[in-house]
């Protein structure tokens, strides 16, 4: 064991053995942390959503299952609504994976200037409010959009892409392909170079080595990306409503309108159905992942090739050509809509104007206290984002450690750790509102929390599963010998986690933190339910408030949101970079 980590480890565990009283205390640290985590989740998530789901099974104080039965036996909801929702989610997932994989390949296997930054900005689509995506898609792919202008300029026939199922799928890919890219690139970067070299030295062709050695190691990550994409697009709301029109209404649209009509029983029943489907799928995936998890040794990673090679061969040239083609697609799907949004923020009827930004400045300077202003929105977003990190990263790491331990009933911890991903923001927001903001009675007291605390809770429970997902795989493939020798030398379980495992999986922790931050900044549904009528609005809420008969103010606020977010990611990844060992 010649790596510096090993030496540092020996030094440290030797030190631990002499300080045995601490070691005794640390033995209980992990179970204690697990208990605290469980309590937090019960309080911040399971209890609140239970208050919503109760509406599906309780009528007039009696347990009747009436609303749930009514919805579950209705052919329209079960067949048409659930069926279409699953169908479009499946297609969206296929497209997202197809679009995301080449990106992972480029990021993982090639070295070029700005690679790290590019990696950071893959998180940006995550935070773009859907209302802006809709507007940007219309400006780009619509009848009078940029695409048609470009097509007719070069003499090609115009296309009418909106609204359509295709537009929904592309917008979903806009949100989720970067997620696939990021998760798969991380896995690709931890592929063992030794195994590939062995295969090659045994006579395997490059393609064969990829298929038999690399691909099996990528598959769990691809399935992670695909599962998450399916779950997200299964619970999609604003995108189909804006880009597909109402004939493509998903189950979430029906939940929203049932809640708007105060039909709580129906809303809760549909939410139970939706959650049931997503949770089953997630559980299936987790079974697969567990079957896959095998101990892997050796963390020497593949060497990245320069994007611009020193010498050209036919194969190299073909590969670069493929990358160029992919770049065109990326520009069309990702860059063009964002650029259209930026353009919309500085123009009216094709004339250049800074009116929209002037509006933001004026609103900040002279807006009344009861109006939404840009600066508080930025500050609130950053504060909530930071608070989310403080809550979600420890939660996610503890859960990650727990899910990689071997013990009976682990599947339950697995499934429960993923549960927040499958509950929609509307349900989480409603649950926190009724469960915590309105408060609950116990021991003769009524306990309530403020809207701000509830918002952080909503963001943190939505975000921590990403930390689990980015921390668990590297923890799983960690060199067990390192941990075992630390334990043999007398380190407690908790100390082994903190001093050995955590430093080794730090890149996963940073990636998880970036996800958590992105989710907090971009979250809208739960935030708007919890922030309404209050001074706790965030940037996406401000964007929504600034929509009117002209899009300028909203797109300008959206641009500010993008800038603040992109800067934050670069900071997170730079700060995280220090810790990479």
């Amino acid at each position, binding site marked *: 064991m010649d790596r510096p980590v090993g030496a540092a480890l020996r030094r440290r565990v030797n030190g631990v053995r002499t300080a045995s009283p601490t070691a005794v205390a640390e033995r209980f640290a992990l179970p204690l942390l697990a208990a605290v985590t469980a309590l937090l989740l019960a309080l911040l998530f399971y209890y609140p959503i239970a208050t919503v789901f109760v509406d599906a099974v309780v009528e007039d104080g009696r347990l009747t299952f009436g609303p749930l039965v009514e919805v579950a036996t209705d052919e329209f909801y079960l067949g048409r609504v659930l069926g279409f929702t699953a169908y479009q989610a499946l297609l969206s997932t296929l497209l997202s994976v197809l679009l995301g994989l080449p990106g992972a390949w480029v990021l993982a296997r090639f070295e070029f200037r700005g690679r790290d930054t590019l990696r950071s900005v893959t998180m940006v689509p995550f935070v773009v409010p859907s209302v802006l995506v809709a507007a940007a898609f*219309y400006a780009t792919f619509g009848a009078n959009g940029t695409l048609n202008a470009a097509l007719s300029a070069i003499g090609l026939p115009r296309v009418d892409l909106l609204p359509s199922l295709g537009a929904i799928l592309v917008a979903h890919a806009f949100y989720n392909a970067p997620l696939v890219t990021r998760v798969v690139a991380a896995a690709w970067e931890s592929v063992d170079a030794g195994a590939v070299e062995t295969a090659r030295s045994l006579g395997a062709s490059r393609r064969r080595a990829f298929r038999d050695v690399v691909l099996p190691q990528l598959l769990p990550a691809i399935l992670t990306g695909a599962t998450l994409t399916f779950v997200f697009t299964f619970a999609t709301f604003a995108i189909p*409503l804006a880009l597909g029109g109402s004939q493509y209404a998903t189950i979430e649209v029906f939940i929203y309108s049932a809640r708007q*009509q105060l039909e709580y029983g129906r809303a809760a029943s549909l939410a139970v159905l939706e959650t049931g489907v997503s949770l089953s799928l997630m559980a299936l995936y987790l079974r697969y992942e567990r079957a896959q998890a095998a101990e892997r040794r050796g963390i020497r990673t593949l060497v990245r090739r320069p994007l611009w090679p020193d010498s050209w061969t036919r194969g190299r040239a073909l590969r670069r050509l493929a990358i160029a083609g992919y770049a065109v697609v990326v520009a069309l799907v990702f860059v063009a809509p964002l650029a259209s949004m930026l353009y919309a923020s500085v123009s009216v009827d094709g004339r250049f104007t800074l009116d929209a930004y002037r509006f933001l400045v004026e609103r900040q300077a002279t807006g009344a206290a*009861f109006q939404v202003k840009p600066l508080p929105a930025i500050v609130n977003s950053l504060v909530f984002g930071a*608070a989310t990190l*403080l809550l979600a*990263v420890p939660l996610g790491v503890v859960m990650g450690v727990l899910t990689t331990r071997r013990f009976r009933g682990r599947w339950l911890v697995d499934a429960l750790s993923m549960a927040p991903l499958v509950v929609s923001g509307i349900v989480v927001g409603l649950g926190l509102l009724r469960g915590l903001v309105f408060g609950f009675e116990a021991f003769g007291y009524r*306990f309530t929390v403020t809207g701000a*605390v509830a918002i952080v809770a909503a963001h943190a429970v939505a975000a921590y599963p990403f930390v689990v997902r980015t921390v668990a795989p590297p923890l799983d493939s960690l060199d067990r010998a390192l941990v075992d020798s630390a334990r043999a030398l007398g380190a407690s379980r908790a100390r082994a986690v903190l001093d050995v495992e955590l430093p080794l999986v730090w890149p996963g922790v940073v990636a998880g933190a970036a996800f958590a931050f992105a989710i907090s900044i971009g979250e809208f549904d739960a935030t708007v*339910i919890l922030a309404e009528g209050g001074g706790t609005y965030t940037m996406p809420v401000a964007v929504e408030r600034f929509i009117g008969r002209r899009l300028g103010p909203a797109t300008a606020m959206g641009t500010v949101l993008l800038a603040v977010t992109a800067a934050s990611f670069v900071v997170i990844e730079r700060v995280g970079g220090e810790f990479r060992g």
Partner: protein
Amino acid sequence: MTDETGRSRRRFLGAVGAVGVAGLAGCSAQPVADEATSEPPATTDDQVTTEGTTTGEPTESMADTLVVATYPPFVNAPSTSPGAWLKREFESEYDATLVYQTPDSELNYYIERAVQGVDFEADVYVGLDTGQLIDVDSQRGEGQFTGSLFAEASDLAGGDAIKDGLRFDPEGRAVPFDTGYISLVWNATMDGGEFVAPETFEDLTAAEFEGDLIAQNPTTSTTGEAFMLHTIDAFGEDGYLDYWERLQDNGVTVLGNWSDSYSAYLNEEAPMVVSYSTDQVFASAEGQDLDKHQIRFLNDQGYANPEGMARFADSDAPRLAERFMEFMLRPEIQAGIAQRNVAFPAIADAPLPEDYAQYAKEPPESVTFTYDELEANLGTWTDQWARRFAGG
């Protein structure tokens, strides 16, 4: 320990500690018996500073703070909104502070609190329509919502000037303060400047208008609901679904809400959109081409959607709330609201500028359903629409 893992552990522990502190700071526990102190969420800076004064018992003398609940664009639209102006005018005349509350879920915010038995401090709600009033009444009896959410309006000074057709609350709680008409907005510059919108609902389904209309989903949008109700008025409750099937066959685009569809319209996705007959007020104010903002009243009718205000039954400031409602009905205030909210006044003799009528179009005939008709049917009508339309 100065090495990397030491730092990461301190962060980790520090993080857990900080969360604990933040959690405590945002939590409160109060004895259950003392219901009056259950703290409402702070709403605005104003609100926080005035909290001390609103908790006092209502006395014979007038309270000095009025909390007005309304929908966000009423105070917060990026173009014009009456909120700030009303606050200034009201405060300059009365020795009182006006505080706004603008929940995104509008009246549902208060209905939900009533059902859950949570206190709120709003005194008046401004901007409710017939559908919302029906929602209030249908939830009565749920959970802890047993009393009445709104009080009946007493004889307000100026109340008799309200146009007859606008009164929509049979129990007289909601007092209309303005009204809008749902109509088509169309773009005469499309089809190479040849486009002319159809005159009737029938013509709208003609082949030449295929794919030319953007409407909104009645289950998620007010304008969408109003347009659907207009088709029910035109074709009857037995015929409207068939009419919508013809519209669907003719390529109507139904989007989720007004802003999605209006931005699609501005991007020239289609030459017609379901919107408001006051569309030109904005367009002319911003110097836009009015040819792109023509108004069409199908069958020479517009669907009227009056907006009302009502006093919450357990308001701490009932007298001040009544003064405010009277203030809202005064002719010059009516004119001010109409211009800033871009709607029509609820009274006949509001002193509007002359060019206002030029841009704000009134239909030859207005159509609307009564409270009773909607109460019995609205839920069924929208559900049927959603099932038929989404099934397509």
